C-alpha cells in the first residue's frame, strides 16, 4: 500500500511524464522541484491566491492543493504549455498588448484561469471573466487591464511592435520583459535556486516581547544528520542593520531579547526535509515572556517599558515643519475644522514571498534575491558580514511585487552568512505566514489635524500632529516621520503651518516603507479637513480644493518656491465634468432606492519625488560594443512598475537608436551602476534623467568618433555604426576603437541627483526637487442595512509631468487605486490573527471598479522628457476619495480605516440611520 517508491504517470503539456515524488506531494512542488518547470508560482500554498493555477483535464485547479497522486493518467497544462509551437497564444498576445502583467508573479495563474474560461466560452462577457478569474489575486495591476486582455483574447491581436527611432519616449511601448512573464520563463526569487543548495529555515519568536536563553544546540545537530549548521547571533560578525547610516538597530538574529512576534531567533541550515521537519517547540530556546508594549498610548506612557534601552520615551524620531504663526491665523478664520484619524497596520501582500540564495566565491559572496534595492542590500550585507561592499554581489531576480516591503533586508544576510560559513549555496524561501509575520508593514497612524479657512474657503492655518507606530525597529520610520510633516497640509497653499511627525517604538510588527511613506495616512486627515471646511462654508468640495491648489510661484510650508510642473488645477479641471455627472447620478439613485445609497468623494494629493532632503543619485551607462551591438546597463530594480521598459525608452531616444536593437543588463551590482532604490517614486524622474544623460553622452561620443555634427542620425545594424549628418555619411570602424575591460568601444554614462537641501530644525528647505499632483473621485454604493461599501467607479487625474509610457502610468494608477481601496475598506493586519491571505483580505478581481485615468502632463524641466513619478501618487488620493463618498452617501464621517462593514454599520446605527 505504501507508494513511497511509486511512479505517477501523467500527461504534462501534451507529453507523458513519470514522476517519483510521493502521491501526497503537492503538484506545484512536483512541477517546480522534480520537473524544473518553475512557471507555476507558489504564493501561499493554501489556495488563497491562485498563483499556482494549472489546468487538470482542462479545468483550473490550484497546483498547491492537488496531490500528485490524483493526476495519474490525467492531463496537466501549465503556463509553459500555453504557447502554439513556440509562438505566443492569442491569450498571451492579448495580455502583452494590454499589459496584463506588471510584476508577473500572478500572471501564470491568471493565464491558466483565463485559458480554462476561453476554452469553454471563446467570447466571454465581463461577468464571466470576473467569475473565472476570481480565484487569482493580483497586487500590482488593479485587475482592469487583465480583464481587458481576456475580453480581447478572441480577437487574435497582433504583437505590438517596439517604437521606431526617436518615438520611444511617450509611446505605449510593450513591456520589454513582458514576453518572459507570459511564458513562465521569467525567473523570480524561488525560481533560481540551484539543486545542490542547502536550505535555511528561520526559527521565529512566537512572543512579541521576551528574553530568551539558547540551550545546548549540539544535541539537536547530533540527532538530525541532515542539519549542516544552526546559525545564532554569534555567527553574525556585525549583528545590526537598518536603513539609516546611524541607526543599525535590527539584529539579523536576535541576541537574548525579542521585540516582536516573528523576530528571527536562530536559523536551521541543512537539507530541506530536515529543516522543515524540526518543530520549533523541540528546540532549546527558553523564553521569559514579558508584557509587550502595544499601541502608541501604551508606548508613550511615562512608565512604559522601553523597546530599546537607548530610546527614551520609546520615541524613535520627530520631524516638524514650522512656517508662520497658525495660532494667530486661526483667530481670524471664518471656519475651523478639527479631527483625529487612525489607520491600521497594512501588509504589502506582494504575491511573491521573500526568496533567494547565496553562494560564496572565494572571498566574495553572491546573493540572488528578489529585491527593490540591490545596492543598499549590497552595502547592508557587507556591513553585517564585516566585508567590503566590493566583496558582495547582489544579482536581483525578477521581483514579484515590492511596494516598499522589499526595501528592507529579509533572506539576504541569513543566506549570505550561512553560505559564507558552510561554503555551499544556501537558499531560503519564506512561507506566506512567515512573510506576513516577519516583514515590514505600513505604519498605523494617529493624526490630529486642525485646518482654518477664511469665508472664501482659502486655507489660513494648519496644524497637524501625527503619531506613527513604527513597531520594534527603526526601518523606514524616520522617513515616514519626516515625510508626513512636509505633506500633511495637503497640496494646498497655506501661509501658517505647524506640523509634526513622531515615530513611536512598540513591540509590534516593524513598520517600514509602504507606497507613500505615511502620506496616504496623512491624506485621509487633510482631505477630511477639506470636506469639513467645504461643508461649513457651503462650498463645493471640488471647488474648495481648486481655490487652494498649489500653483507655480507658490511658496510651500518648507519655504520652497514652486518653479514649475504644478498640475493640480489642471487635474481638478479635468475631473470637474465627471464630478458633476457623478453627483447627479448619485442623487438620482438615492431618490429611488431605500437600502442602498450612493455617494461621490474627492481626494487630492501631492508627493515629493525622491528621498526627503537627502542626496539620492542614480547613475546609468550605455555602451556600443566592439561587435556592433549596443548594451544598456540599467541599474533600476524592476519590481513590476516597468523600469526595464521605460528606462530603455528614454535611453533609446537620447542615443537616437531604436529600442529593439538594444541588449540590456538589469540591476546587477557587479555590472550596472548604482541607480538607487526603486522607492519614493524616484526611478522615472531620477534614474530616467540619468538614463537620458547617459544616452546623450553616448550620442556625443558616437558623433565625435564619426567626426559628425548635429543634426545627425545614427544607424547601428549588421555590426556597423553609421552616422549621417548634414554634410556626409560617416562609418565608424568599431574594430579600430580600443575596447575597455568589458568590451565597450563607445560609452555614455549619466548621473543625476535631484537638487534638494537639508531641512533645518523648523523643516525649512527644499526637501524635493519636484512633486507629483493628483485628484481622484470615487463613486460608491453603501448598503445601509449591512454596512458594506462597493466602489462603483474611480476617475483619476494625475499630473505626471510627462508619461514616459502612458500604458505603464495607467497600470501604476490602477494598481495604486486597488491598494488604496484595500486600505480604505478591508485591510487590517493583526499579528497572530491574520497571517495568511484568507484572514487578511486584499481586493479581489470583483472589488476593483472601472477606472478612468486622465494624464496631465505639466512638464517638469528637470525630468527626462519632462517626467516625474507616479508610483505612490496613484494610491494616496483613493482612500480619502472613498471616505468622502461614503460620507456623501450616508453622512458618516469616518475617522478609522479600514471601514469594515461592522464599523460602518455601527456608525450608522449610532447616527440614528439604521435603515
Amino acid at each position, binding site marked *: 500500500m505504501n507508494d513511497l517508491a511509486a511512479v505517477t504517470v501523467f500527461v504534462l503539456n501534451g507529453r507523458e511524464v513519470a514522476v517519483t515524488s510521493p502521491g501526497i506531494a503537492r503538484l506545484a512542488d512536483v512541477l517546480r522541484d522534480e520537473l524544473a518547470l518553475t512557471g507555476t508560482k507558489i504564493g501561499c500554498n493554501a489556495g488563497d491566491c491562485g498563483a499556482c493555477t494549472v489546468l487538470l483535464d482542462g479545468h483550473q*485547479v490550484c497546483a498547491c492543493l492537488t496531490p500528485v497522486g490524483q493526476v495519474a493518467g490525467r492531463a496537466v497544462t501549465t503556463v509553459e504549455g500555453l504557447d502554439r509551437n513556440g509562438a505566443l497564444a492569442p491569450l498571451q498576445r492579448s495580455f502583452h498588448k494590454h499589459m496584463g502583467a506588471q510584476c508577473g508573479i500572478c500572471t501564470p495563474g491568471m493565464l491558466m484561469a483565463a485559458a480554462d474560461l476561453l476554452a469553454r466560452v471563446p467570447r466571454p462577457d465581463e461577468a464571466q471573466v470576473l467569475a473565472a478569474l476570481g480565484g487569482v489575486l493580483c497586487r500590482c495591476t488593479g485587475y482592469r487591464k487583465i480583464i481587458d486582455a481576456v475580453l480581447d483574447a478572441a480577437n487574435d491581436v497582433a504583437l505590438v511592435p517596439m517604437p521606431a527611432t526617436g518615438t520611444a519616449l511617450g509611446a505605449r511601448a510593450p513591456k520589454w520583459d513582458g514576453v518572459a512573464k507570459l511564458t513562465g520563463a521569467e525567473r523570480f526569487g524561488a525560481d533560481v535556486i540551484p539543486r545542490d543548495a542547502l536550505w535555511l529555515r528561520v526559527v521565529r519568536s512566537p512572543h512579541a516581547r521576551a528574553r530568551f536563553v539558547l540551550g545546548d544546540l549540539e544535541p539537536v545537530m547530533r540527532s538530525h544528520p541532515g542539519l549542516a549548521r544552526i546559525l545564532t547571533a554569534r555567527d553574525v560578525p556585525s549583528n545590526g542593520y537598518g536603513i539609516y547610516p546611524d541607526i543599525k538597530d535590527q539584529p539579523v538574529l536576535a541576541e537574548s531579547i525579542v521585540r516582536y512576534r516573528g523576530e528571527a531567533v536562530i536559523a536551521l541550515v541543512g537539507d530541506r526535509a530536515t529543516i522543515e521537519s524540526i518543530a520549533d517547540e523541540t528546540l532549546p530556546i527558553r523564553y521569559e515572556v514579558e508584557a509587550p508594549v502595544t499601541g502608541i498610548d501604551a508606548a508613550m506612557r511615562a512608565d512604559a517599558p522601553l523597546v530599546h534601552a537607548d530610546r527614551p520615551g520609546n520615541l524613535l524620531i520627530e520631524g516638524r515643519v514650522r512656517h508662520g504663526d497658525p495660532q494667530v491665523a486661526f483667530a481670524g478664520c471664518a471656519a475651523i475644522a478639527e479631527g483625529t484619524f487612525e489607520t491600521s497596520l497594512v501588509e504589502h501582500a506582494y504575491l511573491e514571498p521573500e526568496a533567494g540564495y547565496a553562494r560564496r566565491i572565494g572571498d566574495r559572496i553572491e546573493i540572488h534575491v528578489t529585491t527593490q534595492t540591490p545596492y543598499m542590500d549590497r552595502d547592508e550585507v557587507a556591513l553585517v558580514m564585516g566585508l567590503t561592499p566590493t566583496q558582495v554581489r547582489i544579482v536581483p531576480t525578477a521581483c514579484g511585487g515590492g511596494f516598499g516591503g522589499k526595501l528592507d533586508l529579509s533572506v539576504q544576510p541569513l543566506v549570505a552568512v550561512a553560505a559564507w560559513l558552510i561554503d555551499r549555496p544556501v537558499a531560503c524561501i519564506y512561507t506566506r505566514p512567515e512573510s506576513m509575520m516577519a516583514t515590514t508593514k505600513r505604519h498605523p497612524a494617529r493624526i490630529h489635524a486642525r485646518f482654518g479657512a477664511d469665508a472664501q474657503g482659502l486655507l489660513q492655518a494648519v496644524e497637524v500632529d501625527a503619531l506613527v507606530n513604527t513597531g520594534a525597529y527603526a526601518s523606514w520610520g524616520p522617513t515616514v516621520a519626516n515625510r508626513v510633516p512636509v505633506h500633511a497640509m495637503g497640496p494646498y497653499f497655506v501661509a501658517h503651518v505647524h506640523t509634526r511627525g513622531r515615530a513611536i517604538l512598540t513591540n509590534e510588527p516593524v513598520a517600514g516603507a509602504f507606497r507613500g511613506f505615511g502620506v496616504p495616512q496623512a491624506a485621509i486627515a487633510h482631505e477630511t479637513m477639506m470636506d469639513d471646511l467645504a461643508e461649513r462654508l457651503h462650498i463645493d468640495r471640488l471647488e474648495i480644493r481648486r481655490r487652494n491648489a498649489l500653483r507655480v510661484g507658490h511658496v510651500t510650508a518648507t519655504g520652497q518656491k514652486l518653479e514649475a510642473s504644478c498640475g493640480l488645477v489642471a487635474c481638478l479641471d479635468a475631473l470637474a465634468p465627471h464630478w458633476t455627472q457623478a453627483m447627479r447620478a448619485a442623487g438620482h439613485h438615492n431618490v429611488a432606492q431605500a437600502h442602498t445609497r450612493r455617494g461621490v468623494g474627492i481626494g487630492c494629493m501631492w508627493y515629493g519625488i525622491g528621498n526627503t532632503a537627502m542626496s539620492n543619485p542614480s547613475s546609468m551607462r550605455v555602451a556600443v560594443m566592439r561587435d556592433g551591438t549596443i548594451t544598456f546597463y540599467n541599474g533600476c530594480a524592476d519590481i513590476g512598475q516597468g523600469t526595464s521598459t521605460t528606462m530603455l525608452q528614454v535611453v533609446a531616444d537620447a542615443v537616437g537608436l531604436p529600442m529593439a536593437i538594444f541588449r540590456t543588463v538589469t540591476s546587477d551590482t557587479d555590472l550596472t551602476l548604482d541607480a538607487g532604490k526603486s522607492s519614493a517614486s524616484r526611478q522615472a524622474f531620477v534614474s530616467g534623467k540619468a538614463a537620458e544623460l547617459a544616452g546623450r553622452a553616448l550620442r556625443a561620443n558616437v558623433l565625435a568618433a564619426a567626426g559628425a555634427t548635429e543634426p545627425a542620425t545614427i544607424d547601428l545594424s549588421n555590426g556597423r555604426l553609421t552616422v549621417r549628418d548634414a554634410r556626409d555619411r560617416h562609418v565608424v570602424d568599431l574594430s579600430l576603437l580600443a575596447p575597455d575591460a568589458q568590451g565597450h568601444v563607445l560609452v555614455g554614462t549619466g548621473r543625476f541627483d535631484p537638487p534638494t537641501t537639508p531641512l533645518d530644525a523648523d523643516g525649512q528647505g527644499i526637501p524635493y526637487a519636484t512633486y507629483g499632483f493628483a485628484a481622484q473621485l470615487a463613486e460608491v454604493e453603501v448598503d445601509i442595512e449591512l454596512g458594506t461599501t462597493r466602489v462603483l467607479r474611480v476617475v483619476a487625474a494625475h499630473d505626471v509631468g510627462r508619461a514616459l509610457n502612458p500604458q505603464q502610468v495607467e497600470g501604476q494608477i490602477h494598481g495604486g487605486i486597488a491598494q488604496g481601496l484595500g486600505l480604505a*475598506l478591508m485591510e487590517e493586519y493583526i499579528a497572530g490573527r491574520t497571517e495568511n491571505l484568507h484572514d487578511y483580505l486584499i481586493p479581489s478581481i470583483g472589488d476593483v471598479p472601472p477606472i478612468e485615468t486622465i494624464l496631465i502632463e505639466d512638464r517638469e524641466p528637470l525630468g527626462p522628457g519632462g517626467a516625474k513619478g507616479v508610483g505612490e501618487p496613484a494610491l494616496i488620493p483613493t482612500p480619502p476619495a472613498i471616505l468622502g463618498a461614503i460620507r456623501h452617501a450616508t453622512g458618516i464621517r469616518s475617522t478609522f480605516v479600514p471601514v469594515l462593514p461592522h464599523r460602518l454599520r455601527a456608525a450608522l446605527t449610532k447616527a440614528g440611520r439604521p435603515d
Partner: protein
Amino acid sequence: MGFYFRPARLDVALDALRERALTIVAGGTDFYPAHVGRPLCEDIMDITAVPELRGIEERAEHWRFGAATTWSELIHASLPPLFDGLVLAAREVGGHQIQNAGTLCGNVCNASPAADGVPALLALDARVELCSARGVVIVPLEDFVLGSRSTRRAPDQLVTSLIVPKPAGRSLGHFLKLGSRKYLVISIVMASAVIEVDAANRVASARVAVGACSPVARRLPALEAALIGLETGGNLGSVVAAEHLSPLAPIDDVRGSADYRRDVALTVLRRLLDAIGTRA
C-alpha cells in the same frame, strides 16, 4: 512524508480504515492549507479514485451526493429548484479552482463554523451516510457536526455520501452570503432556506439555517414555524424577528463583531426570504 494510499474500491478503503488511523483527503482544499510550511507526515488515504464515492444520483426517495462530489459537479448538475440554495453556496466557495477540487462532504467533515455548504445542507435536511467494516449508519447532518472542527465520524468510518430526502410538494431553496470582498471570502454571516409551497401558494414547510454565527451552523426553528401558512411573495422576510436568532451564539473576530453579526443576520434572513418568496 507519510504513507499515501489511493484505493480504487470501497471495501479496500474501509479495510484500510479498520486497520489504522488515516487522514482522509479528497479535494485537498482544507488539508494542504493546514500544512503550510509543515511537513506532510500523516498517513493519507485519498478517496477520489473510489467509484462508489463519485456522482450525484436521483433515487426514489432521495438524492444522493457521493463523498467525492465536487462543488463544480454540483453546480453543473441538472438539479431541481430545491437545490438552488446549495448551488448558490457552491458558487461562493473559493474560486473556480477550489470549486473544481473541493467536495461537499469534505466541507462538512472539516466542520468549520464558516463552512459554506452547511447552512444549505441543513436547510435541505441532509443526512450523512457513514460506512465502515462494521456497517452503514445514516445520521442527520445536525447530529453529525458536533462543534467547530469536530464531527461524529469514528476513525474507522468513511463518509460515503450526503443524502437529501425528496420533499412531498413543490420546494425551492436559496442562499445568501455576506463577506468583506467579492471573491475568495470567508463569510461574516450566511443563511440558507428551503420552503415547500402548497397549492394555494402558502408555505407548507420551511427550513432556515444560519452559518458563521455559532460554532456550527444552526437552524432557526421558531422562524421556520412562523413561516408556515404564510402566503409567498416578496414580503416573506417581514416575519423575521430578533427572537428567532436565539439558537445563534456569534463571536467577535477579525471579520466582524458579535453585535454586528446578530444585526445583519436579520437583514440577510429578510432578504433571503423575500427573494425565495418572490421566486415561489
